[in-house]
């Protein structure tokens, strides 16, 4: 059942279009990630859902009710800001209890709900601290508790992990996912980090220049990107230019098979980790060239291959033995047709 729906939602700033006719349906309890580079309109979309930015046109519906013109303080949405936006003049307990006080909930009821929210984010015992006495990760948890304590209809997260260091980010990623699943709260999460979006969300909307380029599950977004932009933004790809004849694509001397009926000039994209190196005469989609560079990055060996004017990047797990490889040596890479993405090229 649709919980949140955006209908042709747009935002213009003068002649600049920040968000351009975004349509989205989000079922109750689902976790949606708005993913895209900076300036793609993802944060503006989130702020319109929260009521902090007034849409230029379009509608926002929650449970079928139009809330497009409802002020933020009557929307019942828990928003976690990128900067956390904690109240510096209040201690942790008062920060978390703010939304309850604004709803006229106080006394023992409020105290127990604040305690409950702080327990949820594992901050019990820090009630009397001021925000500036907390680490970044702790401030993040306070912001999350403050948003959750009001039992919002929707949880909105605006790049909540971008100010944390790498290790803490992974920890919080798992924790936010757990909390979201425990509470079963419908969540919209804004991020520019594709791995965050893929790891946490049920649904990913990849945004490009104010539009939704693709809406799908993490697997769909990664394995079946709808546009070259999505393929390039989510994960890494090798790009080859070729000519398609409806069944095969000619890239230089190589003929590649793909599940595509495109004709004419196309871009062929293959993810580096889908490329194989083993010499199998029968393998389809073979490309041969010479090794230009080998880069060892721990778990993975990156192999750069010069092949008929293209540079191919191959990623192989260092589980296998690649000690025989050396720069300058001839090599053949191959990949499966189902991993070969073909997009018509517009001249």
């Amino acid at each position, binding site marked *: 059942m649709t919980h949140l729906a955006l209908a042709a939602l747009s935002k213009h700033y003068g002649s600049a279009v920040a968000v351009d006719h975004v349509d989205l349906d989000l079922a109750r309890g689902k976790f949606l990630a708005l993913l895209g580079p900076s300036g793609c309109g993802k944060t503006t979309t989130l702020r319109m859902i*929260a*009521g*902090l930015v007034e849409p230029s046109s379009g509608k926002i519906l929650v449970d079928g009710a139009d809330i497009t013109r409802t*002020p*933020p*303080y*009557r*929307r*019942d*949405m*828990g*928003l976690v*800001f990128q*900067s956390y*936006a*904690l*109240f*510096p*003049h209040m201690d942790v307990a008062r920060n978390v209890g*703010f*939304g309850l006080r*604004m*709803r006229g909930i106080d006394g023992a009821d409020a105290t127990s709900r604040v305690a409950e929210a702080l327990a949820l984010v594992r901050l019990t015992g820090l009630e009397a601290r*001021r925000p500036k006495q907390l680490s970044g990760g702790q401030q993040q948890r306070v912001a999350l508790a*403050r*948003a959750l304590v*009001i039992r919002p209809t929707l949880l909105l997260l605006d790049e909540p992990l971008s100010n944390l260091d790498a290790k803490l980010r992974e920890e919080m990623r798992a924790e936010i996912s757990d909390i979201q699943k425990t509470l079963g709260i419908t969540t919209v999460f804004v991020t520019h980090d594709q791995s965050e979006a893929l790891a946490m969300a049920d649904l990913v909307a990849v945004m490009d220049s104010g539009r939704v380029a693709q809406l799908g599950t993490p697997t769909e977004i990664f394995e079946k990107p709808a546009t070259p932009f999505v393929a390039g933004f989510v994960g890494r790809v090798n790009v080859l230019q070729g000519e398609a004849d409806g069944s095969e694509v000619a890239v230089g001397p190589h003929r590649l098979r793909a599940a595509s009926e495109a004709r004419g000039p196309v871009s062929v994209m293959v993810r580096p980790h889908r490329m194989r190196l083993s010499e199998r005469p029968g393998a389809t989609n073979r490309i041969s060239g010479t090794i230009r560079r080998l880069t060892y990055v721990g778990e993975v060996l990156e192999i750069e291959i010069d092949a008929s004017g293209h540079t191919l990047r191959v990623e192989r797990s260092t589980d296998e033995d690649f000690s025989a490889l050396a720069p300058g040596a001839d090599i053949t890479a191959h990949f499966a047709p189902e991993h070969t993405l073909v997009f018509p090229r517009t001249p």
Partner: protein
Amino acid sequence: MKGPGYALSALLMAPSLLVLAVAFLLPVATLARMSLNTTMPGGAIVETITLVNYSEFLADEFYWEITGTTLLLAVIVTISALLVAYPIALFLFRWESPWRGPLAVLTISPLLVSGVVRTYGWIVLLGDQGPVNALVLWLGLSATPLKLSNNFLGAVIGLTEILTPYMALALIAGFGRLDRAAEEAAETLGATPWRTFIHVTLPLSLPGILLGSLLCFVLAVSSFVTPRLLGGGRVFTLATEIYEAAMLTLNWPLAATISMLMLVLFGITLVAYGRLMRAVAQ
């Protein structure tokens, strides 16, 4: 700090310290010395060391009264200037527009005109035949012209206008902690705009409010021209009394004594400001 860095900073501070010593400490020391002298009935100064001026001041009900008037005037003017300047300053702080700079300059532009000139302007505006009273009579708000000048009210109105630019400047400078995101957070948590202002905006702008209030309070306490001219000789403050003693009754030791006591008042104000700032910063 130690070593060459310390020596360098001492060297860099030396010129300003020297200027401060000559232009501030020396006159204050001279004043302090003068306040210990007495005068002969004709006005001649008797070089001596006595606290008789201080004891006379503290024993005289009239001086307590003018101290009260001075503080009352300063407090009312500070609050009025705050009420006028706060919305302007908040707007200027928030407004993202190319007009923000020019408008900020416009706000503080009254400072380009001497306080004396502006005070005379107010005398004209607030007089019985002035435009303000003309409007009041025309609107029928009163049958007779309102007494807007030559009294305490006149001094309040004039000083408020003169000090508002200082208040606006201090507020804008002190709005550093005011974070738009914190206000937005309050709104998403269910606070109406008014409650957001009371619970978030106002507390976060307290440093600016305190700084502006300190500045205006001190300037109002020591202001002389406006209370003197717009008060019409009916408003007696410490500053007008210093002028009276120094220039008219030629009692320099008394003038010096009042000056020293005013300095003590400012000292107390500064300590109170420091305490409040620390409380707010917590």
